[in-house]
């Protein structure tokens, strides 16, 4: 009997088919649907440019292992560096880029990125509305960004010395906190905090006058500071060694880093509020679209987001990730909508402006240097 021509299914054939079907179901569940890839992604290399960690290997395994995909990463230490790398002949070299929300519009203006087809984004419907409705990332009615993680910039404190934290950013200027504060050497973060504390809306470009007012607000805080540190790692170290009890603005990741060093820190948003940030995947001009959508779909899938959330200790944008997270992380999402509704997402200051009243990036840097020297 010619088994080749037989319509009978052998045990081996059955196993092969069920295995393939199983992989297909698993891949669909992980966001790798035929719609997501739209082409052959077997054995390709995905070229990633952006922040380290946003290409987390474990989050990508369901995409990379069955498809034998290699992710080749180039990291940038700042949003400007990522922008510059793309600007300096990056077209065609990268398939997907991660970037801060404030830089997306500059990338659009410089024709560095292309619109995303939301029909090819398998998780687009599950992304929180708060991030789809932000003013950044769209131009000419087209969307250019896929928001995937976000956070805010609260105040960190050591409850051993400041049991309830501070109520207002102004509390950082109190005499009892003289030499007990650590500030980050980062112009945009510190001046955004000062702008909020001095009553300026940071969800739009700010004026030079508002920036000067923020500087005046910041000077007494700087006079109270014990250390001005170059990185969040240093900030965690200074607070873990109890050299400082309070931070200015911070990244919540330092809470975990200080805990590893044996010091319990907590964070709180003072009454004036704080600002939010959101990191996005964007697709550069000249990218391999199949590679780009496969990567983005995996990283915005509930499973990919879960791995990222735990690895980075950050909030994610896919609503479906919440039940997959450990209980202590789920608690952060309880009042998320209300918090996001009152959190401004500042645009990056422009490098230059036709309006002489608008504060440029160089104005921020110069103002911050004046504060540091004061």
């Amino acid at each position, binding site marked *: 009997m010619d088994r080749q021509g037989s319509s009978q299914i052998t045990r081996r054939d059955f196993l092969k088919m069920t295995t393939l079907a199983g992989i297909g179901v698993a891949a669909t569940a992980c966001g790798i649907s035929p719609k997501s890839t739209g082409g052959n992604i077997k054995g390709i290399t995905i070229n990633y440019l952006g922040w380290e960690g946003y290409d987390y290997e474990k989050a990508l395994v369901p995409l990379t292992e069955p498809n034998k995909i290699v992710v080749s990463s180039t990291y940038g230490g700042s949003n*400007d560096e990522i922008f510059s790398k793309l600007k300096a002949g990056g077209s065609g070299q990268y398939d997907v880029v991660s970037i801060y929300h404030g830089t997306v519009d500059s990338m659009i203006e410089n024709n560095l990125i292309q619109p995303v087809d939301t029909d090819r984004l398998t998780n687009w419907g599950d992304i929180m509305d708060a991030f789809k409705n932000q003013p950044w990332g769209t131009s000419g009615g087209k969307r250019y960004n896929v928001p995937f993680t976000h956070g805010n910039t609260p105040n960190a404190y050591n409850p051993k010395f400041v049991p309830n934290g501070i109520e207002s950013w102004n509390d950082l200027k109190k005499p009892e906190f003289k030499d007990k504060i650590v500030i980050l050497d980062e112009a945009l973060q510190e001046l955004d905090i000062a702008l909020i504390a001095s009553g300026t809306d940071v969800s739009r470009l700010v004026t030079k006058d508002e920036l000067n007012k923020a500087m005046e607000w910041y000077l007494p805080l700087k006079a109270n500071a014990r250390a001005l540190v*170059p990185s969040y790692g240093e900030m965690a170290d200074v607070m873990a060694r109890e050299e400082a009890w309070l931070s200015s603005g911070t990244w919540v990741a330092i809470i975990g880093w200080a805990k590893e060093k044996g010091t319990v820190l907590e964070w709180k948003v003072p009454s004036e509020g704080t600002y939010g940030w959101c990191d996005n995947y964007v697709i550069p001009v000249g990218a391999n679209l199949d590679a780009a959508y496969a990567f983005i779909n995996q990283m915005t899938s509930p499973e990919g987001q879960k791995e990222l959330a735990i690895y980075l200790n950050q909030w994610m944008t896919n609503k479906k990730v919440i039940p997959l997270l450990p209980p202590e992380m789920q608690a952060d999402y309880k009042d998320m909508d209300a918090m996001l509704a009152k959190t401004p997402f500042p645009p990056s200051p422009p490098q230059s402006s036709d309006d002489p009243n608008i504060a440029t990036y160089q104005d921020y*840097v110069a103002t911050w240097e004046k504060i540091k020297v004061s």
Partner: protein
Amino acid sequence: MVFLFLAPIFVFFIYSFWRLEGFEIIREWTLENYVHVIENKVYVQLIVRSIGIGMITGIVTVLLGYPVAYAMVFRMKAEREMILLLMILSLFSSYLVRVYAWKTILGNNGVINHILMTLRLVQEPVSWLMYSKLAVIITLASVFLPITVLPLYSSLMNISYSLIEASRDLGAGPAQTFRKVTLPLSMHGVIAGFIFTFVLTAGDYVTPALLGGSNGMMIGNAIASQFGVASNWPLGSAITFFVVATLVLLFVLGGVLFKKMGLRG
């Protein structure tokens, strides 16, 4: 060799006459970066602060290094090579490791505060030891001390011992011999050691960033900021060459002063 040294300097010199617009470097000749540096009090303040810290550190290292070099040459001849080897070995240790080591010595929970508290000399940790200009000077002095000792040692080794013996034979005491013979003859080493430390210290930006606290920023940090976060290479280059010009001017003035004092460097 000269090309490798001069080429990057020349490139940055050219950059200092260009300007940044948006994210683009506009290759049009302009003096606006230099005007900005001169008009901006921040940079002048930082240069003055950096020169001050550089001078203090240079003086401290010479004052600490001179007795070491003197002892190696005239008092500890048998141990001389071992001490010299240890000095050179210390230069192999990472600069950053030494900076972090000082954090564990000067901090609130550091060695010094621990001793002071144990001896009940203070009730609470002395906070000004760390995150201050003092912390920067102490750390930089410790880092650059071996570099200062080497030219001091070399200049003292070149002094003919017969001159010292002649001074003593003619009735001069040890102090007078040191003041009239040894010190003037070793002045080349003193000046070289001071200049090495001064130049390296005044341009440093790592130690001020890690230990300088909220008032320890130096001109190196401002330059790093322009080349880094601000991406303004033309302005960063202009600040750099303004600092270089200031230091050259200082050395010329110093040379004139030494000449008037009868010393030649």
